[in-house]
């Protein structure tokens, strides 16, 4: 066998490897784009909604005082699509929920939504240069967890979301900020009122609280 033949052979071999390498790259990258572009992912859905809110917040046009109401409405629209408010409200009442009539439940859900909106919007309004990092998601059947970190003034604040698949959309049913679950915290808070003043006392207290906030804004 001559040297030429050897060269030809090794050339063939190297082309084979280049081909294999390219093929694997195509396959790997294809897989990756498939995985990250999946619109059904809870992480992707959460990120999209959050980005929508950030866009409203950063819009210079909406920052004028005349547009304040419109701006709030736009944010609320997105928030209402993100959360399973009824589930959260039920969960925050614990066993007390079952002792309410349907009408009472509806009233409570409405008040609960206003309360969450007030807390959420109040915090979100002071957003300017915060950065959200979407770390990972874990999905099991119709339940999911999304782990995020928000960087606020150089400080990393972990926020974990618990989501539930409902009619093709992932809805937030609870979130933990620095390990503190929103729903569990409200459950304790509500329970502390219900124990002393029953459900009627709770409704009265939330209504008063909301009116006070309304006056201040």
């Amino acid at each position, binding site marked *: 066998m001559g040297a030429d033949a050897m060269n030809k052979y090794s050339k063939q071999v190297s082309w084979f490897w280049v081909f294999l390498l390219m093929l694997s790259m195509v396959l790997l990258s294809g897989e990756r784009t498939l995985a990250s572009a999946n619109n059904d992912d809870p992480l992707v859905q959460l990120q999209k909604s959050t980005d929508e809110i950030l866009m409203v917040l950063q819009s210079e046009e909406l920052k004028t005082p005349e547009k304040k109401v419109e701006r709030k409405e736009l944010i609320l629209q997105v928030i209402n699509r993100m959360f399973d408010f009824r589930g959260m409200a039920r969960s925050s009442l614990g066993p007390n929920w079952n002792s309410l009539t349907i009408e009472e439940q509806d009233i409570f859900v409405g008040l609960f939504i206003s309360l969450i909106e*007030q807390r959420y919007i109040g915090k979100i309004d002071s957003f300017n240069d915060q950065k959200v990092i979407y*770390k*990972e998601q874990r999905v099991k059947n119709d*339940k999911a967890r999304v782990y995020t970190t928000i960087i606020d003034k150089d400080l990393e604040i972990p926020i974990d979301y*618990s989501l539930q698949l409902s009619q093709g959309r992932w809805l937030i049913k609870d979130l*933990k900020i620095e390990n503190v679950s929103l729903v*569990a*915290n409200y459950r304790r808070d509500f329970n*502390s009122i219900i124990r002393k003043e029953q459900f009627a006392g*709770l409704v009265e207290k939330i209504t008063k609280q909301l009116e006070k906030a309304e006056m201040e804004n």
Partner: protein
Amino acid sequence: MVCNGGANAFVEFFTRPTKLIHFKTKKSIVFSAHAVVFFLLLTVTHAWADDTADLSPSAQPDVTLETNKAAGEAEDDTWAEEDNWGNEWGEEDAIADPLEPLNRVFFHFNDKLYYWLLKPVAKGYSVIIAEDLQIAIRNFFDNLRSPTRAVNSLLQGKVKDSSVEVARFVLNSTVGILGLGDFAKDVLDLNSTREDTGQTLGYYGAGGGFYINWPFLGPSNFRDSLGLLGDAYLHPFIFLDLDTEVIVGTWTLEKVNYAALTMGDYELFKETALDPYAALKDAYQQHRNGLIKE
């Protein structure tokens, strides 16, 4: 000889310009310098081990060390916790609060302290001190807690976290200029852990005990109050033998600085809670239990 000379020069570098640290004997100086070198070496070797491990195709840059460590059991852990989370009525027992009437008085006191004193002062402070400088000041105080975190990580068997804290302390105190910058995190990606003595006690099975809402200090419990004492003894200020007025002064500065950086957070929490005392108590319990589990 070379080693001793090097260690002395190393220590002198810190001590001579400031004359702040007085170690009792030469021996302790050499020992501490050795300890520092040992921890630095540990960090480097661990960091190297991480690099090699990260070559695996599934490695994600954003996943924290804890997640890597628990990769095998993560699945089970998550969903065991998920059951806890998803289970609507199941939750941890409420923290015992036999001192509630007194605690509520102190809660009220702290609340007024915030609105009448701390907040107005922090507002004025924000006008004078730019936000970047506020962050630097927070870093400075945070850096002083590195020894506490290092010792407590070690006590919990987290050798790597401990060595990271030592490396952070050494680097940030020098290259980071007295801890004002977070060089270790920004450049070397060495992230701080949040260990303290209360968590170490919890790690060894100590329950929280009853709830205490301290005046000035805020929410705590029996275990974590002991922990605060331990933390104080591990604070560099103890070694510096500072006057009480100086300690109270710097502590106040830290509080004002923190209030300036988190302006509005307490107000929002209080305004959207119905019984803010109960809500704060529960938030404290959840927050601490989460930290101990980490």
